[in-house]
């Protein structure tokens, strides 16, 4: 393509970006409830995701209570324990993290960061949220159906997922699958918007290589999700048919309660392939937006341009592509051909390369930066540490020979909570502390924020560090009560109790965060338009919070990338993306 740096003498042509026909709300209902404004939809997504996330948090408390003090809480029986595990995992991975990163952050940040007035298909965007809400409601309804929610584990492996003996076999599993199908339909509507908006609605001058890494992360994750979620869709539909109509897609011939079932010949491994073809990209669907957000937070709060921007972009794209060829590393113990294990171990280890590049670049961005230890920065640093931690244990589990003895132990639980539980949540919190002033016009309370950070960060390590050790001892996961077991020493039980207390404390710290979010909405310090001195476009809106249509009469024109911090010779320590070059502004060619 031809790339024409603009002629600095002749002045600037007006922004000739195709005008989006804006939708204008006519009533309170269409302004705040059935709104087609991406910013309102983003807030709706976030509130819904966090509400259902609170349910999952409470479930994790209940699980920890049982594990830490087995036998003390008579209201938690083995069935319920399995149901709590299942719902906790499913909610956290799909209904909280995926929805929050793409539906929440994506909706709010994409149009603002690319200098657009709104998403390109606002109506479809609105539908996306309402279908998502319906999916959440169907999911929540499983707690109230006869038999309760399914207890099949978040992977929903057949045959046990639909056989009697698994809790929630009557209704829970049906509602669960229906909810997943709805979620995927809703997500596809939203995802089309995010992708096409990034492709077509970027403002003048904003080339792909000038996009903030947050947009790159969300964009790539959305593309991956659009291609990977169909696998979960196919698996869910087929499992639903097995359960409801007695087909045998996945169900082998088996005897249930002494009776030969109507099923026969199906392949449970087929389900695992489909599930993990979605399941592994899902890890990066959650991680890539976090990578992007962290890159931006670090750059802004260290007042330094991101180190190796190009590498960062390439790494995001490479991770996205590679994540589609590693799925079977979740299936080392499922009875695959050993050569498959070799292949998937190799691809898994290759992913470590682009990921490591990202970590090095974050560290090099911090190197000799003017680091401000603001709350968002603290969360960003915590993300890097936690992600490295979880990534290193990933190297253990990615190797077949090491994975086999560690499979189904607490080591696996500790690994994936570090890498895709704690780490992305740190990015979520960092992102919320960072962009809250833009969304509401007020700062979140700093003291409460620091309290929230230190308790969450240290507490999360208090929970999950010892869990690695329990896993190495051989403590299995998914067990309601480990009982008297030869290889588990008494000290392990004490450790479990300690972790449970830590989990309760971390959970309560999140209530402090919720209080902070609500309190600051009314009483927080006025933020002004750009409290952090950030260069990217979303901070340059004429109003804060951004009004309908985001920008005033004219769309901004972009003259530079999003990371011009501490530029030698510049007046301020940041240069906004839409500030004309010095030569131009001297001529008064642009206001």
């Amino acid at each position: 393509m031809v790339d024409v740096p603009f002629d600095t003498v002749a002045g600037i042509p007006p922004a000739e970006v195709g005008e989006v026909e804006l939708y204008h709300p006519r009533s309170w209902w269409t302004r705040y409830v059935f709104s087609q404004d991406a910013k309102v939809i983003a807030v709706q997504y976030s509130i819904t995701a966090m509400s259902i996330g609170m349910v999952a948090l409470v479930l994790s408390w209940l699980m920890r209570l049982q594990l830490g003090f087995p036998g003390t809480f008579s209201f938690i029986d083995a069935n319920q324990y399995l149901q709590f595990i299942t719902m906790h995992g499913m909610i956290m991975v799909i209904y909280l993290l995926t929805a929050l990163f793409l539906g929440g952050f994506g909706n709010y940040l994409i149009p603002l960061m690319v200098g657009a007035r709104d998403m390109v298909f606002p109506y479809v965007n609105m539908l996306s949220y309402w279908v998502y809400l319906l999916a959440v409601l169907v999911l929540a309804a499983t707690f109230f159906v006869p038999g309760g929610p399914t207890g099949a584990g978040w992977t929903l492996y057949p045959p046990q997922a639909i056989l009697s003996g698994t809790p929630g076999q009557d209704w829970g599993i049906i509602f669960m699958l229906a909810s997943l199908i709805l979620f995927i339909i809703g997500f596809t509507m939203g995802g089309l918007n995010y992708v096409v908006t990034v492709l077509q609605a970027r403002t003048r001058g904003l080339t792909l290589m000038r996009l903030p890494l947050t947009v790159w992360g969300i964009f790539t994750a959305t593309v991956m999700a659009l291609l990977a979620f169909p696998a979960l869709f196919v698996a869910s539909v087929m499992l639903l048919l097995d359960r409801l109509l007695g087909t045998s897609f996945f169900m082998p011939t088996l005897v249930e309660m002494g009776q030969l079932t109507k099923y026969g010949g199906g392949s449970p491994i087929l389900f695992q392939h489909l599930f993990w073809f979605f399941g592994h990209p899902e890890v990066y669907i959650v991680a890539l937006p976090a990578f992007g957000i962290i890159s931006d937070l670090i750059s802004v709060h260290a007042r330094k341009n991101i180190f190796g921007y190009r590498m960062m972009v390439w790494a995001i794209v490479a991770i996205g592509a590679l994540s589609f060829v590693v799925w079977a590393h979740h299936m080392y113990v499922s009875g695959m051909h050993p050569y498959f294990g070799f292949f998937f171990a190799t691809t898994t280890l290759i992913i470590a390369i682009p990921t490591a590049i990202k970590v090095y670049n974050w560290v090099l961005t911090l190197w000799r930066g003017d680091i401000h230890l603001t709350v968002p920065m603290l969360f960003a640093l915590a993300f890097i540490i936690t992600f490295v931690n979880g990534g290193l244990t990933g190297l253990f589990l990615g190797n077949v020979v090491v994975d086999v003895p560690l499979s189904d132990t607490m080591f696996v639980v500790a690994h994936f909570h570090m890498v895709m539980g704690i780490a992305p949540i740190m990015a979520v919190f960092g992102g919320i502390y960072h962009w809250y002033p833009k969304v509401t016009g007020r700062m979140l309370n700093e003291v409460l924020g620091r309290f929230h950070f230190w308790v969450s960060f240290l507490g999360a390590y208090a929970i999950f560090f010892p869990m690695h050790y329990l896993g190495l001892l051989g403590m299995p996961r998914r067990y309601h009560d480990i009982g008297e077991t030869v290889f588990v020493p008494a000290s392990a039980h004490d450790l479990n109790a300690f972790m449970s207390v830590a989990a309760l404390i971390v959970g309560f710290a999140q209530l402090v965060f919720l209080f902070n979010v609500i309190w600051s909405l009314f009483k927080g310090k006025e933020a002004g338009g750009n409290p952090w001195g950030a260069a990217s476009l979303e901070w340059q809106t004429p109003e804060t919070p951004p009004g309908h249509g985001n920008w005033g009469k004219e769309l901004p024109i972009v003259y530079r990338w999003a990371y011009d911090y501490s530029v030698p010779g510049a007046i301020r320590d940041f240069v906004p993306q839409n500030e004309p070059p010095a030569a131009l502004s001297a001529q008064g060619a642009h206001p």
Partner: protein
Amino acid sequence: MSAILLFMAGIAAIAGWWLSQQRLTAKPWLEEGVMVDLREEGTASLPPAKIGLGVFLAVVGSLFALFISAYSMRMNMVDWRTLPVPALLWFNTAVLVLSSVALQGAHMAARRSDVDGVIVGLCVGGASAVIFLIGQLLAWRELSVAGYFLASNPANSFFYLITAVHGLHLMGGLVALGRTTAKVWHGAAVTELRLSVELCAIYWHFLLLVWLVLLGLLTGWTDNFVDICRQLLT
């Protein structure tokens, strides 16, 4: 999983080609000023709706590729009994081809600003799509009368499932087609309709292509091909 991997390789090739046009080797930290980017040079004429449809087709393609993957894995199990494909399917296929051709005609008429041509094309296309769907239902009936029920064999299950998913996508297309036809009916200018008609035509061609692939799969024509793919991977 070979079908989906092939599909993903295709998507990756397209994405790679597109990315290679995007100056990914630029050094944005050195470049100041307004850059005229690719959209303004070449693809500015591509409306967002068309790109949106393209992305959506990739999603639908991935869905069907996954169904095909599942199909080809499941059909290797011992209990698989291929079901006789009703002759009606050939008639249905011809009708679907007609539908696609009619919409292509509507698209071309819209380019010539020929309103009557657009109306004829849309109506014939829509009607034949409905006939196709009815034909599929009749084929189902024929099979169930002959004793091939949904749950009696995995081959049957896949037949019903895959045709149903394809039919549902066509029904979704009919909604869009209906809205476009309604717009013509209410006298919207042809220039406004060009895009809608074109998008309908693209979607129809895509669903026809998917149907032909599925038909090959269901009638067993692609068995050999699937075998080759499997041998490549194992």
